């Protein structure tokens, strides 16, 4: 509720002015919408008359040619932690806006409780104002809505494609990044827009980091060669060169040196042994081997006070991939964490538990194995009931089982060539196919959830996976290749890169709509309690 805090701050400001006997005119602009609660607060504070309110019904910010953001980072905490549904309506309105602009969506899919609510609210909006989109040719063939809690794992992993890595290292805000002096190799910071307009960036954004440096240096050599051409030029050629090419070359040169600077800075931080071991541990967690070793690694990470957010992230990754921590580890890791980073994080742990990010295996969880056996061997109704009862006990992540079903860990035969990716796993060095993207791939392939029942059940989404197809002969084959993916609670650049890859492979074009661009640090910070 960042907006709340800001709003209450402004209320405080007005009151302070009043006490000091100052009279001014105040204007509060609410975006994307004004809430009744805010007006009520103004009234209760007795300053309703002093403040004029306006609403800026802004809902979609185009960050790039294929990325729309609602810029609602608070969505994640408000909904997934506090259960506050206020933003769902905002999402529905954004969808409504898109459908009035681009015609109806003939194929709709979704997974997650919030996805379903947003979808239904949106349908209501469409019905209320029907006639507007009816009869229009659809321009977007498919829309896919997905809740962030369907796949926490992907969002918790360290990013290794360039754009994700830049986000993890420098934090991209609203499509731009502040490169500090260590990148610009001057004494000034520089704000740089990162999108498809930046030709250099556009070529490396989706690349695995290990390729980026080589690519950039090749590019630098080419650039040099182009500059060098001017040596043998006569006056006329030189004039042409200066008037036509030089500006472009200089621009490219500037961008190139910026990205090379960024790369060097990232390399300094990430190619240390620490980072290698971190990645190794993450991969071990994803694959589910050497759990004890990984747990010790995390413990050491905490003991050494490496980083509160990183430690928390690793604990969550361990918890989700393992269906919760075993009670002994749950206690000891938390104790260690409190000793290292301060006792106020007792509240952080309470938050993480509520959101299902860091949980303890229930004593009955040793039955997991038995349960899965029961459901596999016996298919009669009684057994079905048993499993229902189990799953109602606690929302389990079931990551291991899902991973097996969806083949998220590619079989390694030989070296994974990161230069020529063969699947979406390249965004995590070939170790893991992002769950969210795999789900989208599978559903698009089937044009439904058919055959994915078991996965949906394991995701605890039996009631929240939906398909809605309208018989729409008007949809051109071109529009059917266009897919709008809606992430409720945020998506990462790694997921975007993976789906861009899938798009190139299968001839789709993805457009992303997200409540905000996120990464593991942002998720953890949203859950953390810091002393006021």
């Amino acid at each position, binding site marked *: 509720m960042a907006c709340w*805090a800001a709003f209450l701050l402004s209320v405080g400001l007005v009151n302070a002015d009043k006490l000091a006997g100052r009279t001014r005119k105040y204007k509060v602009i609410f975006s994307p919408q004004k809430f009744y609660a805010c007006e009520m607060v103004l009234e209760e504070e007795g300053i309703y008359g002093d403040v004029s309110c306006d609403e800026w019904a802004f809902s979609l910010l185009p960050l790039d040619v294929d990325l729309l953001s609602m810029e609602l980072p608070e969505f994640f905490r*408000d909904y997934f932690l506090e259960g506050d549904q206020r933003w769902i309506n905002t999402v529905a309105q954004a969808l409504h806006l898109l459908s009035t602009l681009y015609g109806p969506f003939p194929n709709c899919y979704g997974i997650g409780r919030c996805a379903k609510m947003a979808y239904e609210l949106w349908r209501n909006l469409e019905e209320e104002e029907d006639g507007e989109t009816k009869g229009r040719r659809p321009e977007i063939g498919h829309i896919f809505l997905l809740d962030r809690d369907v796949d926490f794992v992907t969002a918790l992993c360290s990013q290794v494609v360039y754009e994700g890595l830049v986000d993890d290292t420098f934090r991209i805000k609203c499509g731009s990044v502040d490169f500090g002096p260590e990148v610009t190799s001057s004494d000034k910071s520089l704000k740089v827009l990162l999108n498809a307009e930046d030709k250099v960036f556009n070529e490396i954004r989706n690349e695995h980091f290990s390729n980026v440096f080589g690519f950039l240096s090749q590019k630098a050599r080419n650039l040099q060669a182009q500059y060098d051409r001017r040596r043998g030029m006569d006056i006329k050629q030189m004039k042409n060169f200066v008037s036509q090419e030089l500006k472009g070359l200089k621009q490219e040169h500037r961008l190139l040196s910026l990205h090379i600077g960024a790369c060097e800075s990232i390399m300094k931080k990430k190619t240390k042994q620490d980072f290698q071991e971190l990645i190794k541990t993450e991969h071990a967690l994803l694959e589910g081997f050497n759990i004890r070793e990984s747990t010790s690694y995390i413990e050491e990470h905490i003991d050494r*006070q490496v980083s509160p957010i990183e430690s928390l992230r690793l604990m969550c990754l361990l918890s989700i991939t393992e269906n919760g921590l075993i009670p002994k580890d749950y206690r000891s890791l*938390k104790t260690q964490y409190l*000793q*290292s980073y*301060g006792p106020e994080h*007792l509240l952080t742990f309470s938050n993480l538990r509520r959101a299902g990010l860091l949980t303890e295996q229930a004593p009955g969880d040793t039955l997991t194995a038995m349960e899965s056996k029961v459901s596999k061997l016996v298919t009669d109704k009684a057994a079905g009931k048993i499993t229902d009862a189990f799953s109602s006990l606690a929302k389990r992540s079931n990551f291991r089982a899902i991973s097996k079903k969806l083949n998220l860990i590619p079989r390694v035969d030989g070296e994974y060539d990161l230069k020529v990716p063969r699947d979406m796993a390249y965004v995590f060095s070939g170790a893991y196919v992002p769950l969210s993207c795999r789900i989208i791939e599978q559903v698009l392939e089937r044009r439904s959830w058919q055959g994915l029942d078991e996965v949906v059940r394991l995701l605890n989404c039996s009631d929240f996976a939906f398909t809605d197809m309208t018989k729409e002969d008007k949809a051109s084959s071109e529009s059917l290749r266009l897919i709008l993916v809606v992430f409720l609670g945020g998506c990462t650049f790694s997921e975007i890169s993976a789906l861009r890859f899938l798009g190139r492979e299968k001839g789709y074009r993805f457009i992303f709509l997200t409540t905000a661009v996120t990464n593991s640090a942002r998720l953890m910070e949203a859950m953390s*309690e810091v002393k006021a």
Partner: protein
Amino acid sequence: MDCYTANWNPLGDSAFYRKYELYSMDWDLKEELRDCLVAAAPYGGPIALLRNPWRKEKAASVRPVLDIYSASGMPLASLLWKSGPVVSLGWSAEEELLCVQEDGAVLVYGLHGDFRRHFSMGNEVLQNRVLDARIFHTEFGSGVAILTGAHRFTLSANVGDLKLRRMPEVPGLQSAPSCWTALCQDRVAHILLAVGPDLYLLDHAACSAVTPPGLAPGVSSFLQMAVSFTYRHLALFTDTGYIWMGTASLKEKLCEFNCNIRAPPKQMVWCSRPRSKERAVVVAWERRLMVVGDASESIQYKQLTIQVLLDRLVLRRLYPLAIQICEYLRLPEVQGVSRILAHWACYKVQQKDVSDEDVARAINQKLGDTPGVSYSDIAARAYGCGRTELAIKLLEYEPRSGEQVPLLLKMKRSKLALSKAIESGDTDLVFTVLLHLKNELNRGDFFMTLRNQPMALSLYRQFCKHQELETLKDLYNQDDNHQELGSFHIRASYAAEERIEGRVAALQTAADAFYKAKNEFAAKATEDQMRLLRLQRRLEDELGGQFLDLSLHDTVTTLILGGHNKRAEQLARDFRIPDKRLWWLKLTALADLEDWEELEKFSKSKKSPIGYLPFVEICMKQHNKYEAKKYASRVGPEQKVKALLLVGDVAQAADVAIEHRNEAELSLVLSHCTGATDGATADKIQRARAQAQKK
């Protein structure tokens, strides 16, 4: 040919007129019209008649009757007048009958004699009584102008948005003006009045004398004045039998006429056909009618729009006809049929003799889900008629649950409103209902209601977290949610409390709550935190410096950095800091101090639980190769190669790796062979590899 012109009579030199009966009035009048107050609505609207018994002093016991007829004399309504004496009647543009009473109260009735509302023209009018009143029409609506017994004017230019305006005094006015009228110019209402030979124009700021251009001399009084419907033209009738016609702005004369009749006329009105260039004034005496005309300029009449026509039909409850017209004109449903049906439904709900069930069913059958029909509006009307149950039934047909909420709240069905608001998915609406409920119910009931609505509960909790912390606590208490109560008190210990005692007390409450929640871990952690706080306080007192709010780890580190090793050890024991952590901690702190002697002593105090590689690493971090090498020799075999590489001893690292016959280690060393002197080492490794492959 004869028959066409036979009934036309000459009027002056160039015009002709004829008389014929348009239709005959259907009414059966009991009273003489002359004894009645009469008001006919514009555009062929209804006619109201009120026998005026107050003129004659006597019959106060007999209550007069107010009759309303259509323009053709069909009776529409008849009611006994039970209120006070009426001075003037008039119809508003919306076909509402305004009855101006002597005491300045204005009663408003509908076309069918249904009482709508009343308003007062103010205290001054009440005190001095109404002498005369006019209802006039402006482009904004209908106005009322009053002449009081004190010979002052008060007016309201739009009775729909009542703003009373008391006009300035007319200097020297001792008796009622001989005639007066309301004028409307430049969107402002004025009064024009005649006193003896003088004319005055009153606006809300001033009273000014005016003179019509070209007025014939010898006038000692004005007997009648008439303004045209559009307020463009004015006619004056003087005591010399002279008629002046000109613009209402009194800037231009159109014509004049001397009729030589000096008796005051009963009535004088402008009349004219739409779009005709002919304007005329009709003057009526007891037994004489005179038409004075002039033909020069066109007058545009605003025509009734189709919407107004439909409104008129609806007012007369001619719903089927209105619908037929809509269908014939192919009006869009929302503007046409839906609107008529909605009006019909609003009328239907007023039929008190039909049961709620039947009314609701009838309405739903007719309306179905016609677009543009708002069931909530109809329900609001039903509620307005006191039929709450019917309103609820009608609301059930409203497809947009959000639309049901405001009325449900008004009807005090807040709980139902809450579930409807939740159904609508509009959290803002839910919140609105919540605040209603909060004021309406006692706390216990309010909380119980919330308990059954998780979505509303979480919304309210969010609000409380920022605005009403105490309420939040009560909410958790009611639910016996000890876990959240514990968290609540922990938060309080950070946010609200400054003093250490207060913080410890808050933490104690939290710990108790955690025990109740059977969350032993949190309870113990909280108790540890209390202990730590007290201790940090003591440390600050005894040693100075900043300890409060540091983590346990940082507290111990601070002690070591301050040279209080004993205290640090004691603290580590008291709080059962695990060995591994303590070693990491001490190692880092001593290296930060660059206390290499103490570090070495520490490293030898017992076997390191974290191995010796971290010692090497940390020394190298502080660029102390000499110290690093000491520890490199103590590193266990698995990490030996790493340690040797760290201190830069590539050759020895190669030897160890070859000894280990470990391929991974070999390639690691090889990747470090970058210096000029490492050539030999690299060769050595390659040879070892080749040898290993042979075997």
